[in-house]
């Protein structure tokens, strides 16, 4: 039997024949396999070497384990009082002590040598063909293409699994829905797109708290530290879509900010760059134009859904004790200047992060939206992008 089959069989045996949820859905394309036992199938040389060194150290450990516990269980079996074994009284032997100090030391040196080479290789981010910046936000990722083909592209990447597959309490048929979704929790609206066989340097930072950019198939994990930039690199050797998740506790939706990397051929990549640039051009807004309330509201609802719902909730009621309600909030109903101030600079020491990274139009739209949504009827209910531009100074 293959190890995987054995694991399935074991799972079923332990659960007393309970149908395997995982087996029913099948492996995740580019993500974990059903009851996967080992590291994810490698797509880069670094990940391949991690597989190798894992087996290498593991077999050494297994060999020592079998030897030591072979001896111990032999003693447990043979040297018991019930079998009439009389105790020996030997103890203290400097020769033996030296032997079992020196031999393990040499084994460890043997492990450290290949590991050292790998550390040096993993840390070498020089001579990249493409540099992208990944920014961790509570709770999504932002990508900016800094250098190489696609320079200037920038977008946010968010979980695309709908809430109605996740929250059983609010959606009675959530279970049925997610059991149809093989990429449950590891899918996003805008994946990071990169070319195959090119060295990609990922510069990583965060906006609020520490996150970690973790891509098992690429052999990469790097913490995203607010206020600092760190970097890592990968060179994917296969095309395809690969999936990972945030690996550093970052608050409430830590489990809901996956990472998807779409590796394409050079030609397909360049095509994507073209399209993305056109799309971005079409979407650039003119912050000096005067906007209508209806347009601001419509745009603001989208911005709200992308940036604010996680805490303040779709109904604007927040979460009692954790995140304040915006519906009926004094700040939202008060002077627009004060609200802009909170949105631009955040509330230090709370989960309310600064949202300076949004455009003037987006900020104007979302502020306007909150001032008119739910039960809110603020007196100066329209905030123009130009006011945001002014408030930024």
């Amino acid at each position, binding site marked *: 039997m293959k190890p995987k089959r054995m694991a399935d069989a074991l799972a079923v045996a332990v659960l007393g024949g309970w149908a395997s949820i995982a087996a029913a859905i099948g492996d995740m394309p580019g993500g974990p396999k*059903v009851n*996967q036992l080992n590291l994810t199938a490698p797509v880069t040389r670094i990940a391949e070497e991690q597989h190798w060194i894992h087996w290498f150290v593991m077999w050494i450990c297994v060999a020592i384990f079998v030897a030591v516990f072979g001896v111990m269980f032999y003693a447990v079996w043979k040297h018991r009082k019930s079998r009439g074994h009389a105790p020996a009284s030997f103890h203290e032997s400097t020769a033996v002590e030296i032997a079992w100090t020196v031999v393990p030391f040499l084994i460890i040196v043997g492990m450290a040598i290949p590991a050292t080479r790998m550390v040096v290789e993993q840390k070498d981010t020089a001579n990249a063909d493409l540099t992208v910046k990944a920014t961790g936000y509570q709770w999504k990722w932002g990508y900016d293409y800094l250098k190489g083909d696609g320079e200037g592209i920038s977008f946010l990447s968010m979980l695309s699994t709908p809430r109605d597959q996740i929250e059983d309490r609010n959606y009675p048929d959530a*279970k049925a829905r997610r059991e149809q979704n*093989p990429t449950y929790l590891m899918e996003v609206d805008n994946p990071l797109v990169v070319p195959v066989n090119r060295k990609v340097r990922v510069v990583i930072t965060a906006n609020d708290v520490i996150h970690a950019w973790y891509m098992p198939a690429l052999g990469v994990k790097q913490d995203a530290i607010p206020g600092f930039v760190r970097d890592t690199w990968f060179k994917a050797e296969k095309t395809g879509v690969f999936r990972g998740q945030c690996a550093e506790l970052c608050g409430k939706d830590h489990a809901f900010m996956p990472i998807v990397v779409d590796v394409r051929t050079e030609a397909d990549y360049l095509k994507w760059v073209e399209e993305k640039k056109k799309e971005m051009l079409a979407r650039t807004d003119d912050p000096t134009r005067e906007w209508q309330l209806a347009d601001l509201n419509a745009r603001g609802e989208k911005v709200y859904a992308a940036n604010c719902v996680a805490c303040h909730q779709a109904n604007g009621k927040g979460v009692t004790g954790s995140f304040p309600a915006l519906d009926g909030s004094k700040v939202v109903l008060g002077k627009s200047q004060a609200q802009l101030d909170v949105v631009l600079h955040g509330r230090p*020491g*709370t989960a309310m992060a600064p949202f300076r990274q949004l455009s003037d139009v987006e900020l104007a739209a979302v502020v306007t939206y909150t001032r008119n949504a739910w039960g809110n009827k603020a007196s100066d209910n329209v905030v123009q992008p130009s006011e945001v531009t002014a408030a930024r100074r």
Partner: protein
Amino acid sequence: MSAVLDHPGDHAHGHAHDHPSGWRRWLYATNHKDIGTMYLWFSFAMLLVGGVNALLLRTELFQPGLQILRPEFFNQLTTMHGLIMVFGAVMPAFVGFANWQVPLMIGASDMAFARLNNFSFWLLPVAASLLIVSYFVPGGATAAGWTLYAPLSVQMGPGMDLAILALHLMGASSIMGSINIITTILNMRAPGMPLMKMPMFCWTWLITAYLLLAVMPVLAGAVTMVLTDRHFGTSFFNAAGGGDPVMYQHIFWFFGHPEVYIMILPAFGIISEVIPTFARKPLFGYSSMVYATASIAILSMIVWAHHMFTTGMPVTGQLFFMYATMLIAVPTGVKIFNWVATMWRGSMTFETPMLFAVGFIFVFAIGGFTGLIMAVAPLDIQIHDTYYIVAHFHYVLVAGSLFALFSGTYYWIPKWTGHMYDERLGKWHFWASMITFNITFFPMHFLGLAGMPRRYADYPMQFADFNAVVTIGAFGFGLSQLIFLWMVIRCIKGGAKASDRVWENAHGLEWTVPSPAPFHTFETPPVVK
């Protein structure tokens, strides 16, 4: 009349009438045995509280999707589970053992500072109450993980402040406890007992106490900086003000890694007492065990950043911490080899203390090996912050520290209560714990290798089966501990009368006093030949 005059210093009448009874006996306790008993009950209660936290979050993780908990509450549960288990259950339990056993084993009449001892204990229930109350303040308990990484911990609500206060109290308690243990061991050994003839349990505690003194103030510093960042406008960990979030991690782990050895060295001590007794053979290498313990303690101060390989250290940093960490496996191996050599050609019997001791060696070694695997920095990049880590530290802390605590309890409880425990219950407890422990924690290695991050409230469908197995195992493990509780209660209430020596080949001063050990022992120091 002053308290001093209450004690006429005339011991001829015994002491039955000159110490308070009822609740005063416990609140004003200065006797090491009473205080030890309180520590042990307190830590067991905390084990149950921490266990309930764990079972709640395992229930949520039984299936994919969010069934019973909101993610923010899930994070509170993981955080509090860790804090309560580390600071409420494991550490106080070992102090409880030290209180009961150190004076008995070195032939001292009590701990050196009796009232300090009382104070160290009574800080703990206060700290525990703060932690539990923090669930009920606005925003709930802290949800930043037991490591309380900034800046997430700076974001938290008032629950975080309560946790910081609780940590300060527990830290103060540990420091006072350590001062007491060091003073007792260095000054109050019976005549004729040089340090190098002291029981291993006392040695491991002596070294642990020094470790505690060295690192508890560092933890206090770390959480105080979080506190001032939260409320007083400092920016230790805030880049915008010139600080650095990673500095928090360096400070925390400078405490945190020695802390894990604080939780395992006394366990090594217990195992080193139990194995020779039931193998009916002296410990193979006493002095090398002492040196191994000391070198583990020293090395443990220079390996902290192996918890931080993914923060983006320079190459030299990664290499240094990788080498130093791998080096710790050497003295750890020396300990294991010594225990096996002690068993070799002995005349072994397998009463419950020995079962737990052998079980300890077996499962602890698995945790040691995964530690070595994670020490390989380029590989740790894959498994850091996944369930592999969760598996590793439960193998060393549950199958390690906790099993050793069980082993020690079965070993010494006849001395404490004067009754033999029920051997059948003990065996049930051992096998139930051993089997359910492995069902719970072994599959976590697979989940971690496959890439499931830790501290996740929900996970992809492909991880569903192993998670279901883990949850079932966790309930089994939790329930198995009720056998232990039942065993302890029955042993206190009655049972076969224990002899003074209790175990056929038990050596050491604690076995020379009657069972149960009288309220006052060794009022005139015994002479060790």
